[in-house]
C-alpha cells in the first residue's frame, strides 16, 4: 500500500511540476499576474508530494518490504538501519528519486527567497525549474520506477554493495547531487534572463549566492567521494580520473569559473554573455554527467545498471534542455553585449585568465572522457585515456593559474595596478621557493623541479591570501565577509596545491607478502605484522591483522586493517587502517591470503595527503563565508519589472570578489 501511495504522490508531483512550468512561463509571457501567482504554490505542492514519495521509499527500506523490487535488490534484513536508509540512493532508481527530491528542495528555497525579485522574472525562474522537474519526474516514472513490485516477494534482499556500506559514501551522493542540482538554479536564472532579454548587475547579485551554495555542496561531495575511495577501495589513491569522477569534476570547474565571472558581471556589468554561457554549461555538464553514468555509453567502475531506454530518454532530455538553452543563447546573447574596457592586469583581466584556464581544463577533461567513444565512432579502434594524460592536462593549465591567482587577488577593478597590501608579493614568492626547496631537500631528501614549483606556488598562494586580511587588521579596517571568504577559499587552494605536489612525488606504495612476525620498512617506518585473527561485524565476517609501526624504535601506531567477507553478496572487501598526523598518513590494507598464515599487505606512506581534502574543505568554508556577505541579504527594492535594470553604478571598493 505504501509503495503505491509513493508512486501516486510522484504522479501528483509531476502534475504540479507541469503546472509550475506552464503557469510560470506562459503566465510571464502573457504578463498575467493571476497565472504567474500559480507558480509559487505549485512549487510548494510539488515539494510536498515528491518528498512524500521519497519518504515512502525510505519507509519501504526501513521496514524491509521485499515485495518492492528495488528494496529487494538493494537491502537486506542484516543491513544496519543507517545503511538501509542510505541504500535508498544506492542504485539507479532511488538515486534518481533523491535527485528529484533535492531539485524540489532547491525549487522550494528559490520560491521562498525570490519574493524580492521582479514578479515576471521570478515566475520565469520557477517555470524553468518546473520544466527541469517535469523532465526528471517523467524519467523516473517512465523508465526507473523505484516502487515496482516484486511478486512473489523475496524472502530476503540481495543487500547493498559492501563497498557502499560506509558513512562518507552514504552522505556523498546527497551532497554531490545537491551541488549538481543546485546549478539548475543558476541555469534557471540564466534562461529567465534570456527570456526577459535583459541582464544587469542586479541579476548577477541574485544569481551569485545560489551558485556559490551549489558549488559548496559539490566541493564537499567530491571531497567525500575522494576520501572514501582512498580508505575504502583499499588502493590508497584519491583520484582515478574515472568517467564518473570526471562527470562531477567538470561541472565543478565550470561552477568555479562561473562564481568568478559572476563577480565581474556583478561589479562591472560586463562579461554578461560569457557568464550566461557558463551558467548553461555548468548545468549542462551536470546533465551530461548523468547521461554518461546512467546510459552505459562509457565503462566505469561506478556504473549503474543500464538500460538503452533510459539512455535514449536522457539524450532527448539533453537535446531539449541544453539545445533549447543554447539556441536561446545564440538568439538573445548578442543583444546583451555591452562594451566595457579594462586594463591589462586589472581584476577583470585576472578573472578572465582564471576563466579561460578553468574552462580549458574542463574541456580537456571532457575530451579525455569522451575520447574512447570518439575514436570508436571514427573506427580507429579502442583507446583509453589514462591518469598520466589527465594529470598532465590538469597540471599544465594549473601552474600558470596559480601564479595568476596569487597576484590577481590583489588587483584592482578596471585599473592594472595592484593594491598596497600586495607590496611584499614578490618577496613572498621568493620565500615560497626557498621553503619548498628546503622542505624537499631536507625533509624528503630529494628535489623534483615540477613538484617543487607546485609546492612553492601553493605556499605563495597561502601567504598571498593572508595579505589583505592582515592589512585590514593592522589598519583597523572593517573585515567584510566577502574579503574573508575570498582569503579563506584561496588559502584552501594553496593547501590543496601543497598536498597534491607532495603526495604525488613522495608517496611510497608497496605490496609485500608477510607472515606474522615479518617486518617491512618504508620511509624509515618499520611495519610489523604481529598477528591476524577473526572478528565479526554486523553483517560481515572479517580477518583483522594487527600491525605495529615503529620509527627509530619508538612505537608510532597500532593499525588494524580488516579483510571483510560479506556472506549475503559473497564478496570480499578490504578495509584499510590508517595512522594520521599533520605530516603524513601511514596506510595498511590487507590483500589476499597467501597460505601458511601469510598475507599480501599493501603498505603506503602518504606525505601531506590530508591537505588535499582539507584544502578542498577550506575552499568550501571560504565559499560559505563569501556567500554570507551582507550585500546578498539586502532585498532589492522592487516595485515594477523595470527595477530589474537599475542604472549601472561604479563600484568604489576594490578587493571584493
Amino acid at each position, binding site marked *: 500500500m505504501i509503495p503505491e501511495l509513493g508512486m501516486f504522490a510522484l504522479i501528483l508531483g509531476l502534475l504540479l511540476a507541469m503546472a509550475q512550468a506552464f503557469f510560470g512561463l506562459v503566465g510571464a509571457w502573457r504578463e498575467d499576474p493571476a497565472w504567474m501567482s500559480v507558480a509559487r504554490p505549485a512549487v510548494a505542492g510539488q515539494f510536498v508530494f515528491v518528498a512524500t514519495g521519497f519518504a515512502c521509499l525510505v519507509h519501504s527500506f526501513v521496514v524491509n518490504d521485499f515485495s518492492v523490487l528495488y528494496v529487494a535488490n538493494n537491502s537486506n534484513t542484516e543491513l544496519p538501519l543507517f545503511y538501509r536508509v542510505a541504500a535508498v540512493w544506492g542504485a539507479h532508481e532511488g538515486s534518481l528519486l533523491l535527485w528529484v527530491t533535492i531539485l524540489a528542495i532547491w525549487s522550494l528555497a528559490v520560491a521562498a527567497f525570490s519574493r524580492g525579485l521582479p514578479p515576471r522574472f521570478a515566475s520565469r525562474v520557477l517555470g524553468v525549474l518546473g520544466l527541469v522537474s517535469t523532465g526528471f519526474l517523467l524519467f523516473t516514472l517512465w523508465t526507473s520506477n523505484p516502487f515496482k513490485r516484486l511478486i512473489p516477494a523475496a524472502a530476503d534482499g540481495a543487500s547493498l554493495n559492501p563497498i557502499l556500506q560506509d558513512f562518507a559514501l552514504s552522505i556523498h551522493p546527497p551532497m554531490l547531487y545537491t551541488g549538481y542540482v543546485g546549478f539548475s538554479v543558476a541555469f534557471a536564472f540564466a534562461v529567465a534572463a534570456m527570456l526577459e532579454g535583459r541582464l544587469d548587475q542586479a541579476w548577477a547579485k541574485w544569481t551569485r549566492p545560489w551558485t556559490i551554495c551549489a558549488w559548496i555542496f559539490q566541493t564537499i561531495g567530491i571531497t567525500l567521494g575522494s576520501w572514501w575511495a582512498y580508505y575504502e577501495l583499499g588502493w590508497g589513491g584519491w583520484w582515478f580520473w574515472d568517467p564518473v569522477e570526471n562527470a562531477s569534476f567538470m561541472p565543478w570547474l565550470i561552477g568555479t569559473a562561473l562564481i568568478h565571472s559572476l563577480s565581474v558581471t556583478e561589479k562591472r556589468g560586463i562579461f554578461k*554573455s560569457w557568464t550566461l*554561457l557558463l551558467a*548553461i554549461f555548468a548545468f*549542462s555538464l551536470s546533465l*551530461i554527467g548523468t*547521461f554518461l553514468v546512467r*546510459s*552505459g*555509453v*562509457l*565503462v566505469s567502475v561506478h556504473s549503474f545498471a543500464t538500460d*538503452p531506454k533510459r*539512455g*535514449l530518454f536522457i*539524450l532527448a532530455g*539533453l*537535446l531539449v534542455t*541544453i*539545445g533549447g538553452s*543554447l*539556441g536561446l*543563447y*545564440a538568439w538573445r*546573447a*548578442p543583444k546583451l553585449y555591452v562594451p566595457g574596457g579594462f586594463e591589462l592586469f586589472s581584476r577583470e583581466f585576472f578573472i578572465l585568465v582564471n576563466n579561460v584556464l578553468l574552462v580549458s581544463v574542463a574541456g580537456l577533461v571532457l575530451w579525455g572522457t*569522451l575520447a574512447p*567513444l*570518439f575514436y*570508436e*565512432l571514427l573506427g580507429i*579502434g*579502442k583507446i583509453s585515456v589514462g591518469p598520466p594524460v589527465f594529470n598532465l592536462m590538469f597540471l599544465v593549465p594549473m601552474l600558470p593559474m596559480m601564479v595568476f591567482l596569487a597576484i590577481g587577488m590583489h588587483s584592482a577593478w578596471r585599473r592594472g595596478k595592484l593594491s598596497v597590501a600586495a607590496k611584499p608579493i614578490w618577496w613572498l614568492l621568493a620565500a615560497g621557493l626557498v621553503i619548498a626547496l628546503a622542505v624537499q631537500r631536507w625533509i624528503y631528501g630529494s628535489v623534483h623541479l615540477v613538484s617543487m614549483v607546485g609546492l612553492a606556488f601553493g605556499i605563495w598562494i597561502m601567504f598571498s591570501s593572508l595579505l589583505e586580511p592582515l592589512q585590514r587588521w593592522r589598519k583597523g579596517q572593517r573585515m567584510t565577509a566577502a574579503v574573508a571568504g575570498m582569503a579563506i577559499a584561496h588559502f584552501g587552494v594553496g593547501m590543496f596545491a601543497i598536498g597534491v605536489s607532495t603526495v604525488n612525488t613522495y608517496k611510497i606504495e608497496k605490496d609485500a607478502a608477510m607472515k606474522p612476525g615479518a617486518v617491512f620498512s618504508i620511509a624509515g617506518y618499520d611495519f610489523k605484522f604481529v598477528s591476524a585473527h577473526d572478528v565479526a561485524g554486523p553483517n560481515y565476517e572479517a580477518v583483522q591483522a594487527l600491525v605495529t609501526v615503529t620509527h627509530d624504535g619508538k612505537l608510532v601506531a597500532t593499525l588494524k586493517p580488516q579483510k571483510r567477507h560479506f556472506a549475503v553478496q*559473497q564478496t570480499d572487501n578490504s578495509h584499510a587502517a590508517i595512522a594520521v598526523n599533520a605530516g603524513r598518513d601511514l596506510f595498511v590494507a590487507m590483500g589476499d591470503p597467501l597460505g601458511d598464515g601469510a598475507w599480501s599487505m599493501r603498505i603506503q606512506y602518504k606525505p601531506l595527503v590530508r591537505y588535499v581534502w582539507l584544502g578542498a574543505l577550506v575552499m568550501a568554508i571560504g565559499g560559505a563565508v563569501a556567500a554570507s556577505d551582507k550585500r546578498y541579504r539586502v532585498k532589492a527594492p522592487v516595485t515594477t519589472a523595470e527595477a530589474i535594470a537599475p542604472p549601472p553604478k561604479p563600484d568604489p571598493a576594490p578587493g571584493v570578489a
Partner: protein
Amino acid sequence: MWKWKFVLPIVAFLALIVLFAFGLNPKRDLHYLPSPLIGKPAPQFALSDVLDPNRIVSNGALKGHVYVFNVWATWCGACREEHETLLAISRQNVVPILGLDWNDQRDRAQQWLQQLGNPYQGVGFDDKGRVAINWGVYGAPETYLIDRQGRILYKHIAPMTMNVWNKQFLPRIAAARRGGA
C-alpha cells in the same frame, strides 16, 4: 558581424549529441575488447580433468578440429547464467566445447557439473590460474572459438547467449570449415 560566435556553442553541442547517439547504438558491443591473441595460435595446455583427476585434458588433442573454449568458475554468477545456453549449444552438437575451470575448488566444480549438467567434452582444472593467464583471460565467463589450425578466431567476454552464438559463432564456424578444409 561577430554573431557567429554565439552560435558556436550549440553547434558544438549538436556534434556532441551525434557522438552520444552513436554511443547508445544497441549494436555497439561494450564488452568487445580486441584480444591481441586473435589470429594467433591458441596457447597449449594440459591439465587434470575436474571430474576425473587422473584424466588429462589438453587442447592439443583437438588439433584439426574447430572447437569452443569456455572459461568459467563456480564463484562466477554470470557463469551460472550462461550454463543453460552452453547446455543447449552442446545439444546442437556443432563443435566440441572445452572448459577451463578457473581459480576454483574441485569439489564445488564437480557438484556444479553433476547438478546442472555437463556441456563440456572435458574441463581443465586451472586452480593456479596459469592457463588463464596464458590465454589472456580478462574475467569469467569468456568464450573463445579456435579454428582447425589451432588459431583463436574470436573471443566473447560476458555470458554466452543464443543470440551471440547464432550471430557471432555459427557463421565463423561455417567459414572456418569451408576455408580450412
